[in-house]
């Protein structure tokens, strides 16, 4: 029973960065922009977050730096794809390649360093409830922030005028433009916001989850977060569900390993990637369903003159 509680706790912790990054990418995609640079943005913000938390002495400093780093990289990406109309796939890929090189480059001085000991986080009273306490109420505040962000994003997208506009731009930028809205400005804002969210996710990885900096430590979570947007059929609530599902797979793999299940560790480590592939195939099986849910202008550049 206690073991199950710990597994649930570990799942929430592992799913949190995926949820926050996936939510950022969802906002991008709802505005019609595919961001393949997620992996690079996570890496840059992970190293920025770790450096700031290490040198600044406060993990909150790390989160601010991570969000700023993610937003800065996203601004470069957004400028290229929104204002210069470059190919979104190629540009995103370039951002990922740049991010992995750049993060390794600037992070070289931080390899092997450690952050100061942080006091454990406990929700008052609830943390002492048997079973539920250790499973749900002894987490870093960012774990709860992820849930709050998802709720806020759902409210924003479906209950506010600005959210409606964002969705409209993802469906038909031409119509939004004809109504007099600045499509490019809004797309750019969505990209930068998405980048800041990826930045928080990256900082969470290096400041709270691991907590250290190693080259390439994001290990494909940026791509898994992209797969999550498809899995969630572009709805915020399902991002959370998917993120915890993948978090659970990651944890189950470590859990089985610790229990001495006789499968080579490399095959266990394949589980998150293989399950992403399997889930993608199952979700995408019905092309009509995906097409109905996918923002209609996803990946397409917008020319205001046309």
């Amino acid at each position, binding site marked *: 029973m206690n073991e199950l509680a710990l597994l649930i706790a570990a799942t929430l912790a592992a799913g949190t960065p995926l949820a926050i990054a996936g939510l950022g990418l969802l906002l991008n995609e709802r505005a019609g922009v595919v961001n*393949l640079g997620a992996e*690079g943005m996570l890496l840059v913000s992970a190293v920025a977050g770790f450096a700031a938390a290490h040198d600044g002495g406060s993990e909150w400093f790390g989160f601010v730096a991570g969000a700023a780093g993610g937003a800065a990289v996203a601004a*470069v990406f957004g400028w*290229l794809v929104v204002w*210069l*109309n*470059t*190919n979104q*796939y*190629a*540009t995103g*890929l*370039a*951002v990922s*390649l*740049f*991010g*992995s*090189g*750049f993060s*390794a*480059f600037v992070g*070289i001085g931080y390899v092997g360093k450690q952050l100061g000991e942080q006091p454990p986080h406990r929700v008052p009273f609830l943390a002492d409830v048997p079973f539920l306490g250790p499973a749900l109420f002894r987490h870093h505040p960012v774990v709860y922030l992820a849930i709050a962000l998802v709720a806020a994003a759902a409210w924003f997208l479906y209950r506010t005028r600005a959210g409606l506009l964002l969705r409209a731009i993802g469906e038909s930028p031409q119509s939004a433009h004809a109504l007099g809205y600045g499509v490019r400005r809004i797309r750019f804002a969505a990209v930068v916001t998405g980048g800041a969210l990826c930045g928080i996710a990256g900082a969470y990885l290096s400041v709270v989850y691991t907590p250290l900096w190693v*080259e390439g430590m994001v*290990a*494909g979570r940026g*791509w*898994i977060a*992209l*797969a999550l947007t*498809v899995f969630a059929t572009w709805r915020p609530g399902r991002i959370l569900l998917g993120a915890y599902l993948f978090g659970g797979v990651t944890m189950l793999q470590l859990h089985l390993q610790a229990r001495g299940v006789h499968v*080579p560790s*490399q*095959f266990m*480590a*394949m589980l998150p*990637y*293989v399950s*992403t*592939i399997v889930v*993608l*195939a*199952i979700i*995408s*099986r019905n*092309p009509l369903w*995906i097409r109905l849910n996918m923002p209609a202008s996803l990946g397409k550049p917008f*020319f205001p*003159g046309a």
Partner: protein
Amino acid sequence: MIRLDVRPTPSLAMSVLSPVIALTVTVTLGGLLFLALGKEPGRVLSMFLFEPFNGARALTELGLKCTPLILCALGLGLCFRANVWNIGAEGQFLMGAITGGGLALWVTNAQLALSPWAFFPLVVLAGAAGGAAWAGIVALLRDRFHANEILVSLMLVYVADLLLSWLVFGPWKDPRGFNFPQTVNFSASTELPRIVPGLRLHWGFVFALVAAVLMWLFMFRTYRGVRLQIGGPAPAAARYAGFSASSAIWTTLLLSGALAGIAGAFEAVGPMGQLTPHVASGYGFTAVIVAFVGRLHPIGALLGSVVLSALVIGGQLAQSRVGLPASVSGVFQGILLLSLLACDTLIHHRLRLVGWSRRTAP
């Protein structure tokens, strides 16, 4: 303010100039980066720009680096033109290294005495089979299940990497290798034939050049090749003409997977001479940039591979001589692709300065 106006026709001059401008921007930014790090920019930049071309030995090493990049970029260029976003060439490269290296390991363990020229076609076939099988998974999932090929091919990179790691840490580990994750050194009968005795450059380089010419013939001189490229920019027109999207997916993915696999097999059997986790050197990702620098054109891939190989070699020199991290070449690669994409805007757009002239305009 700078404004972009759409050109009536794409500028031919700009499509040639854009990679040159992008390279200039990259070198300038790189110089500033070195300056900021307190390294002599002139000295470091010459490691990237001149030393890889300095002398016969350097040139053959450049050719050695070019070989996998050309092979991977040829297939990727074809994929991207057909609008199939195979980003997982690195995984297909690794699978080729596993199958090609596995064949060499088998020949070594069985103590077969083959002439290098008898082994060469075998290693090509083994690599092609491994790479094509890995890309075939992507094609199958894309064709039957409509799964996004970008994500599937990328996830398979991590899977291939773990598979290689399992092999060299486990069943294929050299029992007398002091517990290092590596196989035994492959026997002499698996060596790729050298072009010049004493230098490492092997006939795989010539194979890559021939593949580039064949790819050019396929893309621009065969009905099937031209048909593939129509499906990319104009899927509706291609459907109307009765061109099958599913055949385009299978053809481009299998071909690019086979080429990347051959590159991986050459790398494992050629310069490495054994399998280690270091076979995963990022050639598959670098090849994406090669493909774009080469304008998704087979002959352009040859030029692009020279530029990117120089960056890779320069990065290694900068690491050993002035202690810069090897990832500096990754930074260069990212900046190069980003500035190339930005410069490509000039092919279809004209820059115009507005703001001051607005009042005087009629």
